[in-house]
Structures are given as structure tokens and as C-alpha cells.
């Protein structure tokens, strides 16, 4: 209870004392005033009856039942009492109502309620700081995946939106600045169920402060922070223990991957898309002249990637210093886009200004001069989604989408991220082979990904690696239908992590070892059935040996005796 109760009691001291005093005086007075008893003889009202009469008059109920008719002296006193006590009640009730309207009190009450609910959470949850475009999208995605959420935002109107938003389970939300350590503590950062803290506030400095605070408060918890500037990104990466996502650098990096190795990007998009999405088109970025409209943090990141891939570019930016060496042109866009001699010969345009209207008209002007130009467009606001879609760009950058994508990958299947990193460094043939294999074994829709851990603390794995050690437990067994081992479930093993070793695309007969972590993609059904290999030694024995050992003690004993007899 703490704060709220004490705050309420402290504020209500004066009205309560007034009320008690007035009651005391009224009751005492009424019991002392001369009256008449049941026989009409002079007598006094008892304290109990006086309290009863005062109780119904003071609250203006006016019940009217009295033990005996009043004497005039009693009537005089009751008249006085009515006026005084009604005023006292009005004062007390007014104070209570004023208190519940009081902003400080309401905040304390909301905070108290929030803290209590967070403490009562006994399932895994995520803390998201910042409920803007990216924050709300990530919250909805995590909610759809069945996770509990704790949301923090300093803006009351954003938190109000949460109450009417469509969530499967209502998130716990608080209007508070997540940079304050006590806010993170109340949000449950110390809870054993806290999975991760995600900092998605609008400003880099806030996310930096949240990430560092969270890291100090609970070094064991996963922390993901968005940073838009290179300096902030570098700072947090140097700090360590925080996973930093820079949306511009990430997008530029992906463009670089697409330039070098489009198959890898296609596979990456497909494997990390929402389950069931068909395989996206292969994006073949042109390697000719690029026009970059907007040369801020985003444009610079793209320019660096283009430089590294040996692609020529020219940037337009209003107000920037002209720098001919790097192809940077000072410009207000409008004039030169229409008349720029380079436009007609350019292969691609990147409309990356931070105003959607600018990006749209730049695209239109460029297409007028060069109808076949490849368009990469940046969408800044969710509200402009329809407009940007209507521009039919070849590639669209939506920051919130990218953030959700990246965050989910880090939070839900970190192993898939590690697999994709390996893939980028590998030959494009590996990506093609992977795509083919996943398509053959799991179907056309994008699969979901999970990690199977050969954890020998689980009874099934204990049986597989120690009790039945003479039968090697292979990757193929993990995709065998538990009830009919001859049948194969849909699903593909993409990678095995064994200590610091990694096996990409393991063959079906690869023998597993205790402690192996296997990355699978496939339908969720496969994952559910696969769990039986962890929990049921009988199932493991069945797929390995074709016999199921007796479960109960009596039958085990009989079984052993029979074996002994034979």
C-alpha cells in the first residue's frame, strides 16, 4: 500500500478530526440535554440512542425513528447539530473527492497499482520504453506471439492510447521516464520473468540512458536499444552488454548485402518475415549511377555502403556544403531534379528525406525524367503509408517495420540472427541451397524459427545421450514424427552450434552431442511435437530402437525379469 494510503491519510487528517469532534460534541450534548423518558417523566437520552439519532441526521438520511418524542431542549440541540454535522460531512466528502482528483494522488495510485501488477506477473514479459511508432508495432507483434508486456512512456496521451489499442492481453503501462532507476525497478527489471528491456524512445540520449541504467540494475537481462547516430551507436557498443540497432545503418547494410549477394537478402527477408508469408521477390539493385536525395545520417550511411560496393553516387541536400569529391551537391531538390542531366542516365534514386511529401514529389519528378529509374523510398510517418505505397517504389524503408523485424530477431530467435550473419559471409550458393532445402522440406510459406537444445537435464535428452548411448541420436530423429518414426515432419535444421564450432546446414545423419543447439525452421506444429523428445524418454527410445520401455515400476521389474529369463 505504502505511498497511496499514507498520502490519503495525511491529506484527510483535518476533515476526519473535524468529523470526529463534531460527532463527539453532538452525541455528548444530546445525551446530556434534559428530555422525557418512556413514561413521560423527565429523563435523559442514553448515549447509544443519541449516537443513533445523530448518525441518521448528520448524514442527512433523516430516518425519523426516535425512541421517545423529543423535549424542546432536545429539539434545540438537534437543530444545532444538523447544521454543524452536515457541514462537517460536506467538508469530509469534499476533501475525499478533491483528493481523488488530485494529480499527485492519482499518479501515486497509478504507480502503486502498476507496481503491484508487475510484481504479480509470473510469466515471461518484456519491458518496452517508448511507445511511439516502433514501440507500438513491436508491442503488438510481441503480443501476437503471446508475450506479456510492460510499457513505459513519459507522454500521457501515448499511454492513454494503449488502453484502447487492440491487444490480446492488456499490457501494463505507466506514464514515466524510464531513465529513472526506480521506474525501471517498478517495471520489474529485477523480476526473474523479465526477458528483455527494449529502449525505443525518440531520442538517442534517452535510449542510451535507459540502456545503461538497465545494464547497471540487472546485468543478466537482455537489453536492446535503438540509436540513430553513429556516435551514440559506437558509445553503447563500447559500453558492452547492450544490443544496439541503428535503423539507418541496418538498412544501408542490407542494401550492401543486396548489392553483393541478393539471394542472401531474399532468404533473410523470407526467414524473418511473419510466418506464412510467401518468399519475397529477389531484389536486384542496379549497380550504375545512384542519386541520393537527402544526405543526413541516413544518406551518409547509404553513401558509405555504395562506396564500399564501388557504386557511383551523387547526393542532393539543401544547405549542405558542396563537396564535389564525394559527389555532394548543394541543392533545394526541385530545380535540379527536373533538369538534372544525371537523372536521365541514373539507374537508381534514393528518396531519403525526412519529409514524406518531399520523397513523394522527388520520386515523381525523377520518374518523369527517367521512367525506368529504380526507386528506394523512405516512409517517415505511419499516416503516410497509403501515399508511399501508391508511389510503388521498388524498395520502401519504414523505420518502425525494420525496428520490429530486428528486435524480434534479437529477442525471439537470436540463433537465427547468428545464422544469417554466417550466411552473409558465405557464398551465395549456400543461400540458394538453404532456400531450396527449406522450400522442399517446410513449404512455400515463410517458416517460424526455434532452437532445439540438447539439454541433458531434460529426461528425454538424458535417455538419448546416456541410457541409449549405443544408438547415435541424429538430426534426422528430431524431424521424425514421434509416433511414427518412419514419417518425416516438415522442418529443416539450418545450423548446429557445438561450443564454439558451427555446422551450417547439417546433413540428416549428423550425430548430435550433449549441449548441441540446433536451429530449426518449420511450422510451429513440428516444434510442439519436437518438445516430446525433451520430456519423454519413451518417445526417444521408440524412435531410436523401435521399442518403448515400460513406464511403471512394476512393469519395469517384470520386463527385467522376463529379459533375465530369456
Amino acid at each position, binding site marked *: 500500500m505504502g505511498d497511496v494510503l*499514507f*498520502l490519503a*491519510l*495525511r*491529506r*484527510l*487528517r*483535518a476533515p*476526519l*478530526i*473535524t468529523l*470526529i*469532534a463534531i*460527532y*463527539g460534541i453532538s*452525541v*455528548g450534548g444530546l*445525551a*446530556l440535554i434534559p428530555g422525557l423518558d418512556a413514561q413521560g417523566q423527565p429523563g435523559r437520552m*442514553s*448515549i*447509544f440512542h443519541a449516537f443513533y439519532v445523530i448518525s441518521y441526521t448528520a448524514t442527512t438520511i433523516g430516518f425519523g425513528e426516535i425512541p421517545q418524542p423529543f423535549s424542546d431542549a432536545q429539539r434545540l440541540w438537534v437543530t444545532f447539530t444538523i447544521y454543524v454535522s452536515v457541514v462537517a460531512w460536506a467538508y469530509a466528502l469534499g476533501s475525499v473527492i478533491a483528493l481523488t482528483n488530485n494529480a499527485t494522488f492519482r499518479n501515486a495510485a497509478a504507480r502503486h497499482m502498476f507496481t503491484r501488477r508487475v510484481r504479480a506477473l509470473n510469466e515471461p514479459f518484456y519491458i518496452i520504453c517508448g511507445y511511439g511508432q516502433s514501440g507500438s508495432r513491436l508491442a503488438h507483434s510481441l503480443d501476437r506471439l503471446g508475450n506479456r508486456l510492460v510499457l513505459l512512456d513519459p507522454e500521457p496521451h501515448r499511454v492513454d492510447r494503449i488502453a484502447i489499442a487492440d491487444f490480446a492481453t492488456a499490457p501494463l503501462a505507466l506514464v514515466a521516464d524510464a531513465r529513472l532507476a526506480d521506474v525501471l525497478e517498478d517495471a520489474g527489471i529485477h523480476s526473474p520473468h523479465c526477458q528483455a528491456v527494449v529502449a525505443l524512445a525518440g531520442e538517442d540520449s534517452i535510449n542510451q540512458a535507459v540502456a545503461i541504467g538497465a545494464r547497471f540494475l540487472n546485468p543478466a537481462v537482455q537489453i536492446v536499444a535503438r540509436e540513430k547516430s553513429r556516435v551514440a551507436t559506437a558509445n553503447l557498443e563500447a559500453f558492452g552488454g547492450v544490443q544496439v540497432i541503428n535503423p539507418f545503418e541496418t538498412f544501408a547494410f542490407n542494401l550492401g548485402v543486396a548489392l553483393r549477394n541478393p539471394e542472401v537478402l531474399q532468404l533473410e527477408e523470407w526467414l524473418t518475415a511473419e510466418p506464412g508469408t510467401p518468399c519475397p521477390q529477389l531484389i536486384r539493385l542496379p549497380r550504375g549511377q545512384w542519386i541520393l536525395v537527402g544526405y543526413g545520417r541516413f544518406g551518409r550511411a547509404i553513401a558509405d555502403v555504395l562506396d564500399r560496393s564501388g557504386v557511383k553516387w551523387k547526393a542532393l541536400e539543401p544547405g549542405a556544403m558542396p563537396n564535389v569529391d564525394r559527389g555532394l551537391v548543394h541543392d533545394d531538390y526541385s530545380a535540379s531534379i527536373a533538369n538534372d542531366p544525371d537523372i536521365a542516365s541514373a539507374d537508381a534514386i534514393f528518396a531519403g528525406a525526412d519529409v514524406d511529401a518531399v520523397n513523394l514529389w522527388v520520386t515523381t519528378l525523377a520518374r518523369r525524367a527517367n521512367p525506368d529509374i529504380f526507386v528506394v523510398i523512405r516512409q517517415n510517418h505511419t499516416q503516410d503509408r497509403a501515399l508511399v505505397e501508391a508511389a510503388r517504389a521498388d524498395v520502401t524503408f519504414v523505420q518502425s517495420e525494420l525496428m520490429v523485424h530486428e528486435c524480434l530477431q534479437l529477442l525471439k530467435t537470436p540463433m537465427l540472427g547468428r545464422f544469417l550473419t554466417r550466411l552473409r559471409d558465405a557464398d551465395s550458393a549456400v543461400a540458394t541451397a538453404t532456400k531450396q532445402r527449406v522450400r522442399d522440406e517446410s513449404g512455400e510459406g515463410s517458416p517460424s524459427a526455434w532452437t532445439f537444445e540438447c539439454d541433458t537435464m531434460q529426461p528425454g535428452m538424458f535417455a538419448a545421450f546416456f541410457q541409449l548411448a549405443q544408438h547415435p541420436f541424429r538430426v534426422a530423429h528430431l524431424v521424425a514424427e514421434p509416433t511414427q518414426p518412419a514419417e518425416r515432419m516438415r522442418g529443416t535444421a539450418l545450423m548446429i552450434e557445438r561450443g564454439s564450432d558451427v555446422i551450417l546446414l547439417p546433413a540428416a545423419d549428423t550425430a548430435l552431442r550433449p549441449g548441441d543447439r540446433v536451429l530449426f525452421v518449420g511450422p510451429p506444429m513440428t516444434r510442439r511435437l519436437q518438445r516430446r523428445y525433451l520430456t519423454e524418454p519413451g518417445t526417444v527410445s521408440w524412435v531410436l530402437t523401435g521399442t518403448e520401455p515400460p513406464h511403471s515400476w512394476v512393469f519395469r521389474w517384470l520386463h527385467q525379469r522376463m529379459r533375465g529369463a530369456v
Partner: protein
Amino acid sequence: MSVDIHHTGNIPGSSPRRSAFVNLEKVIFGFFIIFACTLNFGFFIGDLERAELHHPMELLAAVVVNLIATVLKFGDRTHLGTTHLATSLVASLQLLAASLVWVWRLYVTQLPLDGEVTAAIVSLSGGALLANLFSVILLLGETLRQGR
């Protein structure tokens, strides 16, 4: 947090004053605590079984003053403040129980007070007196510490 924090709250009709001579809040606070104790004592004193030695008006006054003393201690989160509140709550509950026994005997069972019931009422108020004495001891201890 200072030790005398319950003296700095807002008590009706007073403002936190740092006068060298009289702190009205301390006067009010001490007044109600000691008044609660003395009224309680006044009701308690006398032969345990003789109803005529224990006047109902005195019990009423004791209940009212005890309730006020309890409310005065609301909202103080220091260790001393919460102990103060606890003693007052005990005293108020004991006195209310004593009044209830009285009302029950006279108006629900409709029998006059006899020695047994009077003893029950007065001993309940005796418990309240003990709690009130603790309150006074706490007040004195605190005052002495402030004085040095």
C-alpha cells in the same frame, strides 16, 4: 528524515512554525495524547464491578479523544510515528469494544448492568489505558531526546 516528522504535518488551524517558545502543533499533539490517557484513566479508576463508579459520558469522551489522537498520527511513516499510530489504534479498538459490550447488554439483551459485565467493560478500558500509557511514554521519550 527527521525524528519529529509527525510534528510537521498540517494540523488544522496551525502552520508549521519554528518559534523558539511554542510550537502549536506539538501542543495539540501532546494535548490529545495525554488527554486520551487521562480520560481513559478517569473512566477506569474505581471498583471494577460497580457500574455507578464508571460514567458512560466519560467513556464517550475517551472514545472521541482517542479517535482524534489516532487520526492525528495518520500519515507519519517514521518508525516512531508508526508505533504511535499502532498504540492509538489498539486503544481505540479496546474502547470501542468496551462501548459495544455496554450497548449490547443494555439494548440488545435488555438487561441492567451487573458486576460481571461491568468488570468486562472496565477491564477492556484498562487495556486501552495501558496502550495510552505507552503512547505517553513514547511522547515523553521523544520530548526528552529533543530537549537535549
